[in-house]
């Protein structure tokens, strides 16, 4: 293909064409992925999603917010969606429940009350989270509500002792991809403010892989035959927070919700 005379330049052009043809986002060559001392891809660091999936993971245009007094800062921005294929494959009853949830979300969305967000929602809230990766465990600490989870590596037989808000996470590596199976999550968590939901039979399979030194690709496949007609997947980038001296702060939001939840029970409140 390349004649001897311009071989180097020709070869370079061929390689570049292959890179562009193969797509703009792909796993890095092995030498570029940050690694732990035992050779595994290293996911440690502080990460955050950008976008509006926390409002609605399906594609959506901008829309009114729930509180008139918040004006433009309280309305819902649009989003191209993180659901692969665009629509969640709900059963008819599942879709009806989602629409009912959405109509009453300020009252019923558990995250409004500072309840733990569950998986995958915790990963696309507008708050940073920190991954601390060791050999047998990975800890993920979320700034929102001080939620956290422990990922148990290479313990596929470790069944959840009980249902939990953040689910039970078992992880392993396949080449340079971290795969986490999340099971036994309470039915009470939602997937976004738009009321997307699941039952406690939900199984989430997460995949994390590097797309650059400061970028991950996150995929999660959700299976729940009680509300979805087939498995479906979300996919979006996670960006490393590069601010100097970046650290998680606290968002201990219980304090911010006490009046909302218990205000009507205070002494002297008119309904008492």
């Amino acid at each position, binding site marked *: 293909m390349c004649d001897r005379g311009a071989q180097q330049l020709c070869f370079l052009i061929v390689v570049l064409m292959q890179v562009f043809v193969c797509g703009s986002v792909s796993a890095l060559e092995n030498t570029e992925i940050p690694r732990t001392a035992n050779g595994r891809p290293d996911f440690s660091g502080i990460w955050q999603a950008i976008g509006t999936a926390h409002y609605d993971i399906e594609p959506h245009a901008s829309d009114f917010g729930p509180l008139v007094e918040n004006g433009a800062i309280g309305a819902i921005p649009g989003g191209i969606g993180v659901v692969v294929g665009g629509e969640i494959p709900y059963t008819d009853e599942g879709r009806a429940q989602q629409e009912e949830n959405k109509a009453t979300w300020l009252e019923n969305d558990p995250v409004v009350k500072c309840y733990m967000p569950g998986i995958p929602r915790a990963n696309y809230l507008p708050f940073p989270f*920190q991954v*601390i990766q060791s*050999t047998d465990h990975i800890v993920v600490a979320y700034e929102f509500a001080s939620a956290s989870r422990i990922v148990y590596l290479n313990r596929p037989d470790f069944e959840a002792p009980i249902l*939990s808000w953040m689910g039970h996470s078992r992880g392993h590596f396949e080449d340079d991809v971290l795969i986490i199976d999340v099971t036994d999550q309470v039915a009470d968590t939602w997937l976004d403010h738009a009321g997307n939901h699941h039952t406690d039979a939900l199984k989430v399979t997460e995949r994390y892989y590097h797309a650059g030194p400061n970028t991950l690709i996150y995929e999660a496949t959700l299976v729940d035959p009680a509300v979805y007609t087939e498995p479906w997947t979300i996919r979006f980038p996670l960006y490393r927070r590069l601010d100097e001296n970046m650290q998680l702060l*606290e968002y*201990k939001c219980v*304090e911010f919700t006490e009046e909302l939840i*218990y205000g009507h029970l205070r*002494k002297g409140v008119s309904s008492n």
Partner: protein
Amino acid sequence: MKKVILVMFIFQTISIPSSWVLAQTGSTWEVARTIDGDPDLQGVWENNTITPVERPDVFGNKSFLSDDDIAFLRRRIAEINAAGDDALFGEGVLQAAFSGEITSYDPSTGNYDSQWMAERTIHRRTSQITQPSNGKYPPRTEKAIAAAKALAEHRRDHPADSYTDRPLGERCVSFGAPRLSSGYNSYWQIVQSKETVAIIQEMAHDVRIIPIVPMPHANKNIKLWHGDSRGYWDGDTLVIETTNYSDKSSTSPETDRKVNVEKLTRISETALRYELMSDDPGQFTGSYTREIIFDYTEDDIYEYACHEGNYGMANILSGHRVEEARAAAGLRER
């Protein structure tokens, strides 16, 4: 949380003194290393010690229990557990061992029963406080005494006008960091990466994140419930310095002046020596040092979904409203 095993004799092996003595006499045991070459402190550690924070007067000047003391305590703990009475939090077990009486945390409503408490471990020290040498907290400041008095009066007169009248733990707002109460959800899991140590406090699903690379503390104007921690290795000891506590993180005054230094050293496969040096000038006239031995456990920790399940807060507030209404209507309390 581990369930109490209601058997007639509960003999907790004293794993700590023998390993502690070994550490002192220069045994050949060495702490294993993580893949990054740091001392490996990882695992789940339980703080179920029966050692009280302050030395009870009955121990006088003794810093360590004798063998007779330990035999007595073992027998009394077994008797208390077999009685299956109300749960005894913190130092309640030791007090019951000596007084012969079980004093419930909440005699009016009733309380958890003893099934909810973890088995308690006997360690040799007569107090967690090692400095001052009398095993007791330094004297409190005038301000702290006044604040405690004011708080007690307020709670007596306004036990539940609002959620703000209830303790921070009951509100599921914060259980503090470090949380050092023993015997109930008193489990820590330590996970280490190259640049960070994570200490997960089971109660209440809090991860203390400790960077072990040089990094300045957060700006002094950022005040935090759990403070802001930075760590480094001093030989085989992890040293953690925590500043930036918020005033509201504690009921004692000027908590934003508090500086804690913690030292964690693995002294055997199954024991972690924890030392806290606290300088809290709003509360105490001097600093103090506390030592706790954490014991290794094969158990995993659970999620502690405090706020999500906080029926107690709604019930406490509404219960008081009902009592007030009945009193206003001139009805006798049942």
